[in-house]
């Protein structure tokens, strides 16, 4: 990780202050999950220890209170990831309709296995549990976007599109911060 200073943008800080006001006085810890999503959005799609310490300082809580939460929820990445994290649903209905084939196809295509990142730092492949989109199985999530009714061909097109965009894609999309 570069030595650059960890600091949220002014827009994001203002958003965090608005979120904190949603809870009773002294209960600002409730803003932790939204803050961690925003931290992943601003700091490369993952949570470095320094990032978590910074979030702790903003919410006036102990760093351990951030670590224990970040490590509990599956959406928070505690190791560096590629610009796009490809999240393939592997549960029940998606599995019945070919999710395993998609995973194998992506592994072969990107020459990585689940949990790994491509050498060029573009893609990380993850499998996730049920995304509540079983009617359009199999489903792949990238950032905030659900790619539904996926096939190997559609997956190839999807990967090309993200490669061409060549941007960091996160669950909390930056456009929603600017729109506030």
């Amino acid at each position, binding site marked *: 990780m570069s030595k650059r200073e960890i600091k949220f943008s002014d827009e994001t800080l203002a958003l965090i202050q608005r979120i904190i006001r949603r809870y009773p006085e002294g209960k600002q810890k409730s803003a932790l999950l939204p803050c961690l999503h925003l931290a992943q959005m601003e700091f490369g799609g993952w949570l470095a220890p320094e990032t978590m310490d910074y979030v702790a300082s903003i919410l006036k809580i102990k760093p351990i209170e951030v670590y224990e*939460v970040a490590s509990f*929820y599956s959406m928070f990445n505690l190791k560096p990831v590629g610009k796009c994290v490809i999240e393939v649903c592997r*549960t029940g*209905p998606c599995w019945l309709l070919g999710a395993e084939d998609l995973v194998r196809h992506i592994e072969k295509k990107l020459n990585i296995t689940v949990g790994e990142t491509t050498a060029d730092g573009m893609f990380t492949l993850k499998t996730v549990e049920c995304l509540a989109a*079983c009617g359009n199985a199999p489903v792949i999530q990238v950032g905030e976007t659900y790619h539904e009714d996926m096939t190997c061909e559609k997956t190839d097109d999807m990967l090309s599109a993200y490669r061409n965009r060549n941007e960091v894609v996160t669950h909390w999309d930056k456009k929603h911060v600017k729109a506030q």
Partner: protein
Amino acid sequence: MGKQLLLENINTPGIDTMAGYRAQGGYSSLQKALKMKPEEIVEEVKKSGLRGRGGAGFPTGMKWSFIAKPEGVPRHLVCNADESEPGTFKDRFLMQHKPHILIEGMIISSFALGCNTSYIYIRGELLYVYHILEKAIAEAYEAGFLGKNIMGSGFDLDLYVQPGGGAYICGEETALIESLEGKRGNPRIKPPFPAVAGVWGRPTVVNNVETISATVPIINMGGDEYAKIGVGKSTGTKLISACGHINKPGVYEIEMGVPVEEFIYSEQYCGGIRNGKKLKAVVAGGSSVPILPADLILKTAKGEPRLMTYESLSDGGFQTGTMLGSGGFIVMDETTSVVKNLWNFTRFYHHESCGQCSPCREGTGWMEKVLHRIVEGHGKQTDVDLLWDIQSKIDGKTICPLGDAASWPVASAIRHFRAEFEEYIKNPQNIKDEKHYYNLRNQKAPVA
């Protein structure tokens, strides 16, 4: 197609906006509600017979009446939008396409409960829906339906959306409350129940998205009219998310009481099994409910047609019945391996166990491992009994129902498809020949 109380006009362009929703009569229910007394609203909901649509089916009016009202202590309504039960995608569909029905329901329900600050807790994966809800809430503030002195009624309400971080367990109401407080989603020991000490120790009601949305038609039409829809204690309509090997997967609003056979085969609903295949089994209410073979899902053990109601689906108990659950309706055709599907479900529960209770934390992992060796062709003769033993030692022995939810699929698969497990173990040389295991069905007396 029966009455469409929730999905009505869902395909109308602009229904996701305030203007579009109001053009179809939206927020008329709120206007009516604000002229009533809060206890009259609770009474209408009681009369409607509405039961929790998240899976447990607990009467909503009764749940509301439990909320403690100590002097000077704020209380909160929290909407459970953490839809994560495999097979279930009805709440996502409703919130994405018709967010204002949930907002309107939240305002009515908050007024009934005397809450001035309410939250919608939505699973983190659905951040795009989070932004749809934020936009709808902003529109509602602008229209004067949220904020101070709503429509001159003297009632104040602030409504906020809260994203989760990816954890099935947060659909359990006390885990959801912990998560809303910025903590790990570890369920709390009850009592105290949330109605007494919920979020930040304050009296709290947690209701599912569909439950809260259903208060909109209930107030509009009156509880008695709503209760006329359906059969017996299963009143009103229910959203069913149908998926798996069917021709027309999707979200359907049914009047309670539609026969399961009609639901699966009629063109109005699932449109039959894909590719002309035969039906093998159904998981009728999300991955946690017992799996039933084709004959038992279509007809009860007494030979009566099985209906889409709380009572009919559970007819026969767990020996021959199942549950309506969340309405996540997973259909499996004759090519499905029940054993492999069970391994997949068990892996899910192992992954999602919060780890507080040993039976669930350890047991789900053991079940996953034993099932994995069976589907890999290394099963032992004693494995089926071992699985039965493990699940029986999880069921009912944990703080929250995730333990039960992990054990029921295992118990029911063994109960109804024991022969398929035994064939995997006896003839592992056929493991690659998936056809070999199709249509095997346990004809022996159920275990235990």
